[in-house]
C-alpha cells in the first residue's frame, strides 16, 4: 500500500505550487493586455493541470487511495481543462 506523504514532501510540494503559481502569473502576464495565443494558453492550462495533480496526489493524498480514484479525479480535472482549452482555442479562431 502506498505510504502517506511526509511533512518534508508536503513542504516541497508547496514550494513547487508557489513557483508554478508565480510561473502562471508570469506566462499569463500580470499587467499585459495582449492575447498570448495558443502556445501561451497551452502553457497556462498545462501548468494548471500539473498544479491540480500535485493537490490531488499530495494534499488530498489520493496517491494513497485504494483503487482507481486517483485516475478518476485526475481524468475529471483533465477533461474540464481540455474543454476549457478547446473553447479558448475556438475564441482565437472565431
Amino acid at each position, binding site marked *: 500500500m502506498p505510504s502517506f506523504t511526509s511533512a518534508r514532501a508536503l513542504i516541497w510540494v508547496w514550494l513547487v505550487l508557489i513557483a508554478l503559481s508565480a510561473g502562471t502569473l508570469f506566462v499569463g502576464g500580470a499587467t499585459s493586455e495582449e492575447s498570448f495565443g495558443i502556445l501561451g494558453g497551452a502553457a497556462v492550462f498545462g501548468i494548471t493541470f500539473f498544479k491540480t495533480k500535485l493537490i490531488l496526489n499530495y494534499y488530498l493524498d489520493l496517491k494513497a487511495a485504494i483503487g482507481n480514484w486517483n485516475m478518476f479525479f485526475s481524468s475529471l480535472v483533465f477533461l474540464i481543462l481540455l474543454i476549457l482549452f478547446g473553447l479558448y482555442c475556438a*475564441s482565437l479562431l472565431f
Partner: protein
Amino acid sequence: MSLHEINNTDDWGPLSGLPGNPIMWLLIASELFVFGAFFIGFSLLHITDPELFSQSQNKLDRLAGGLNTMVLVSSGLFAALAVHYQRQRNTLKTRLWLAGAGFLGVLFLVIKWTEYADKFNQGLSPDSNSFFMWYFLCTGFHAMHVIFGIFLLIVIGWKNTDENILTGTAFWHMVDLIWVIMFPVIYLIR
C-alpha cells in the same frame, strides 16, 4: 498507519478506498462538475463576445488573484500538515495548523473583498455586463465555499476525530483545487 485504519469501518464498497468520509468525495466530484459548468459558460462568453470579454477582463486585478492563489495553496499546506500531525496523535499541532489554514482562508476573503470593493467603486457590479455577472457568480460562489470551509476547519479542530480531520481538510483542498482552475480561466486566459 494505513488508510483502512484511519477511515471509518463502514463498508462503502469501492468508495472505502478514499481517505475520509466517501460522502465528501461525492461532494468534491459534484462540485467539480458544477464549477466546470460555470467555467465552460464563462469561456463561451469569450467566443460570443470577445470584445466585451477582453475589455472587462482587463479591469480585473491579476496580481490580487495571483496573490490569492498563493494564499490558498499555502493554507492547503497547513491543512495537509494538520492531517500529518493528526496521524502522529499530536492534537496541539493539528489544531495549530488548522487554525493557520483558517487564518489564511480569512486572508483570502479579505483580499477578495478588497477586489470587490474596487470593482464596486468603479461602478462595476453583477448587473454591469455578462462578464461581470459570471465573474461575481463564480468568485462569489467560491467565496461562500471558503466561508463554509473556515467554519468546517473550526468544527474539526474541536471534534478532532481522524475521520473528521480527513473529511474537513478534503473539503478545504477542494476549495483550493477549484480556485487553482478558476484563477487562469477568469483572470488570465485572453
